[in-house]
């Protein structure tokens, strides 16, 4: 293997004089004070390799020796990934000793001594290729498929598969033979370089099915699909993280991968504490059992920030190839972009906009494109849904990360400072935000069949009512309450009704925090029904008072379980109010 010595150090960028061949993105190990620091080659110039170090370079010396590994940054894939808490390089944080993270500490991502109950799916004589299923093990409650390693090119014959039984991850579970007769022993694990997309599927298909998040402003207003992409930009304090955590909790996915990228450690701790306690209502199992967390918090080494999102995406793709619905969340992609900026700056590259590297838009586009809905070689389907948050500098969406992302992501959830200030949570602006899936023919057909006929049109109508209400509000503000017709006030209050009862949602209330699709459908029909009524009012004062009463009753309904007495009671009170009003007419 190639070796080298350190010739310069600037923060986490080092240059290494090498004695042999090196590859771009190759991983090397710097020997310093008795430990090995991992670094990634990011530029080669003759005998000089530039590498970004994934750890603090404090104490590194000129002349420190470097060993090259011959491969890119890889993750280890196999049973045992779920419920794990990894750092950005897939070190298992639980296995680290001590309160502080020691420089150079490397821990195994999987558990080598745990037994998994294996059932074969392939039999001797089968022809298989990369990504095909050889067997099944139970990982928590998930059917974890043991696959032909993704790196194996071409077709192979299965020579043998072990019988059903308990095996450890490094036990040989199958032997494959290539055309030229060479034998390949297969274990439950494999490795894959994170910067390359896993492509062992038949084809990518257009997403069509809603991925329920339990949030009305998303599912009803701007739905994201299985295999869809979305982004949430917002100034600080508008609830990005609360929103993403709510999606992580309630999202209707088989697997959730959370990448805490350059954000607050306490937010990760919150997930560590809550997820082992919370139950997934669909399976009755703990949320933690379907979740893997990758955290590179803002005080952990910057270079590993970029690695963390790629590690997360690779794990997501791995599970997608088992025919599972995977939801991946990254908070926040801006920190990753900043890490790229720091490095580009140290390499003294000519800067692009706001000093970000010029290839930033391409890097972001490639990354988002790894999400998607796929049809596997065996006909099953799987999906990776990706939602990233963005922390735009100064809260201004006209900045490179937001703009680059807007060109690739299909759903846009704009967090509004104004709504956050008015404590209208979640602070997603219902009109500025969009979901391009609403215009997909596949999506329209699917909702017609599975939710209700004309669902997409109902949503568009609701948005129109909102838009009309805001226009009316502007008129009222300019002309004054009594200078406009009462109609304007009715338009305004209709939009307030939708805002308070459908869009706003209390993520800290046990009932209101998660609204299933069936209930969302019921409520939106109810509320639009009210908006359709032409109610008689004498003056604008009456309009506000009446709608406030309705809002209060519907909010109480939102706080009550749907089949409960209280729910029924509030609904009756609501109907009475409406009947009285219409009776007057």
């Amino acid at each position, binding site marked *: 293997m190639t070796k080298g010595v350190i010739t*310069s150090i600037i923060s986490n960028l080092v*240059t290494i004089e090498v004695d042999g061949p090196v590859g771009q993105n190759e991983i090397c190990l710097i020997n310093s004070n008795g430990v090995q620091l991992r670094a990634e080659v990011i530029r080669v110039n003759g005998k000089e390799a530039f590498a970004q170090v994934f750890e603090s370079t404090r104490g590194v010396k000129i002349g420190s020796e470097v060993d090259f590994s011959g491969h890119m940054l890889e993750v280890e894939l196999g049973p045992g990934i779920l419920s794990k808490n990894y750092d950005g390089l897939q070190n298992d944080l639980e296995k680290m000793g001590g309160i502080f993270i020691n420089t150079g500490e490397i821990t195994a991502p999987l558990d080598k001594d745990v037994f998994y109950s294996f059932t074969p799916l392939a039999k001797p004589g089968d022809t298989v290729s990369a990504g095909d299923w050889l067997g099944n093990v139970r990982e928590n409650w998930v059917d974890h498929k043991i696959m032909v390693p993704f790196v194996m090119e071409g077709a192979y014959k299965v020579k043998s598969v072990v019988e059903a039984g308990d095996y450890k991850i490094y036990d040989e579970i199958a032997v494959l033979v290539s055309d030229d007769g060479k034998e390949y022993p297969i274990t439950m694990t494999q490795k894959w370089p994170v910067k390359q997309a896993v492509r062992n599927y038949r084809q990518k298909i257009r997403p069509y099915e809603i991925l329920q998040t339990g949030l009305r402003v998303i599912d009803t207003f701007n739905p994201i699909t299985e295999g869809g992409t979305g982004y949430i930009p917002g100034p600080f304090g508008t609830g990005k993280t609360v929103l993403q955590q709510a999606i992580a909790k309630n999202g209707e996915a088989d697997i959730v991968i959370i990448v805490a990228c350059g954000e607050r450690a306490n937010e990760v701790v919150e997930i560590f504490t809550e997820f082992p306690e919370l139950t997934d209502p669909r399976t009755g199992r703990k949320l933690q059992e379907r979740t893997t967390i990758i955290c590179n918090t803002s005080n952990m080494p910057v270079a590993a920030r970029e690695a963390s999102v790629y590690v997360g995406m690779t794990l997501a793709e791995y599970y997608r190839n088992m025919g599972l619905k995977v939801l991946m969340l990254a908070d926040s992609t801006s920190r990753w972009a900043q890490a790229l900026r720091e490095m580009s700056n140290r390499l003294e590259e000519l800067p692009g906009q*706001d000093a970000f590297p010029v290839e930033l838009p391409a890097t972001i586009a490639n990354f988002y494109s790894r999400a998607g809905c796929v049809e596997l070689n065996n006909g099953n389907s799987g999906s990776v849904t990706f939602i990233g948050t963005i922390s735009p500098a100064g809260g201004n969406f006209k900045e490179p990360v937001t703009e680059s992302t807007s060109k690739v992501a299909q759903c846009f959830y704009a967090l509004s400072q104004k709504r956050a200030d008015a404590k209208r949570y979640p602070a997603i602006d219902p009109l500025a935000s969009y979901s391009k899936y609403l215009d997909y023919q596949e999506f329209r057909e699917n909702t017609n069949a599975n939710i209700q006929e004309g669902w997409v049109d109902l949503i568009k109508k609701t948005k129109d009512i909102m838009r009309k209400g805001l226009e009316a509000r502007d008129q009222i503000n300019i002309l004054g309450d009594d200078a406009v017709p009462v109609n304007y006030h009715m338009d305004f209050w209709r939009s307030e009704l939708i805002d308070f009862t459908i869009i706003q949602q209390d993520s800290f209330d046990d009932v209101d925090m998660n609204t299933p699709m069936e209930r969302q459908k019921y409520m939106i029909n109810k509320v639009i029904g009210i908006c359709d009524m032409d109610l008689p009012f004498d003056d604008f004062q009456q309009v506000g008072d009446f709608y406030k009463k309705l809002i209060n009753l519907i909010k109480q309904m939102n706080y009550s379980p749907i089949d409960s007495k209280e729910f029924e009671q509030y609904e009756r009170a609501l109907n009475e109010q409406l009947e009285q009003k219409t009776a007057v007419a």
Partner: protein
Amino acid sequence: MKTKAFQRIYTEISAITKATCVLKAEGVTYEELAWVDGRPAQAIKVVDDMVTLQVFPGTEGIATKAEVVFSGHPPTLNVGELLSGRFLNAYGDPIDDGPKVEGETRAVGGPAVNPIQRSKPSSLLATGIAGIDLNNTLVTGQKIPFFADPGQPYNSVLAEVAMRAEADKIILGGMGLSHDDYLYFKNTFTQAGVLDKIVCFINTSENPPLERLLIPEMACTAAEYFANDKKQKVLVLLTDMTLYADALAIVANKMDQIPSKDAMPGSLYSDLAKTYEKAVQFAHGGSITIIAVTSLNEGDITHAIPDNTGYITEGQLFLKQDTDIGKVIVDPFRSLSRLKQNVIGKKTREDHPQVMNTLVRLYADAKEAKTKQENGFDLNEYDKRCLRFALEYSERLLAIDINISIDEMLDIGWELMQKYFEKFEVSIKETFMNKYWKKSKVEEGLVEEKVN
């Protein structure tokens, strides 16, 4: 800085800028501490045998033949119980005429806490100020700055919060502090008789600006000693982080780095996070809470320093002069404590979240009414009630001179809601209304008649 036999000494500096100097030296480790003509410096770039040192006190008067001595280790602090009651400079040397601090020598700016070793911050840190306790409740292990204009009394509010908060140790990191403010802190701590639980690391505006870079690391290293080794509740006060960031920009500039937004270094976010993320709640009970000050330019929070800070810290507190009551209040709209959800309604009374939100919403309605009024529109009856409510809410709850318990704050909240509003206007969960809404049916009727 005494020179010792085994230290490497060089006397040939090849380049000098206002903040750095470059020389040929061998075997230097990254971030190693050195002395240039007796002035503390740190290795921030090493290329082949050329070492770039950032000279903390500045390079004025340094000659190319100045003596450069390398220490072989990063900057350190001697930690121990003897730190208590001491006033130290950016290098951890006494400025209070006391003896040099004896104790275990530790490198400053140590590694990050493993996230899984942290506990969820969930103990209340009460201050008695309703603008904080009621609307923006603080929690131990939290990090939060005051975003303040230079004219606002942030340092005295900071001292007030420190005195009232229950902490075992208070560590003050002063960066570019005016000498008057330094004396103010010193006098406040002395008069309150709490000197034994104070440690101060002070860089005043009279000291060289680059020394500020060491202050947060010193303060946090001392904090980690008390919080982790001694399992104490530590409160770290950092004022003013804007001046710290300015010092970062100076060094980046002298290193020829391409500046990003507002002439700040591209690594500003990580640099600030390194300090703020030292805030932690340990499972063993020890904690570090950081309350900082970030001074603003005319309230501009989109500037890179407050902007990056806001993304790192767990909320921010805004002070504001309320001209209607003539007092400084904690702005309920722009202030936020992200960790309040961990304690409100759990460690405090159950109705806390809803009362808090409703009061702020009504205050927002009042603000809208006020705009309406200023634009010359007639106010309706609801608007008028909102305005009267806002005045009393500001006076009795938002002003920073309030010092009451959280239960009292909530009671005042209910009192105000009942005084000015109807049941349907507050829209609070029915179970709480039944318990705390004391206004009788008759009274309701009376008000309603008045309205009609």
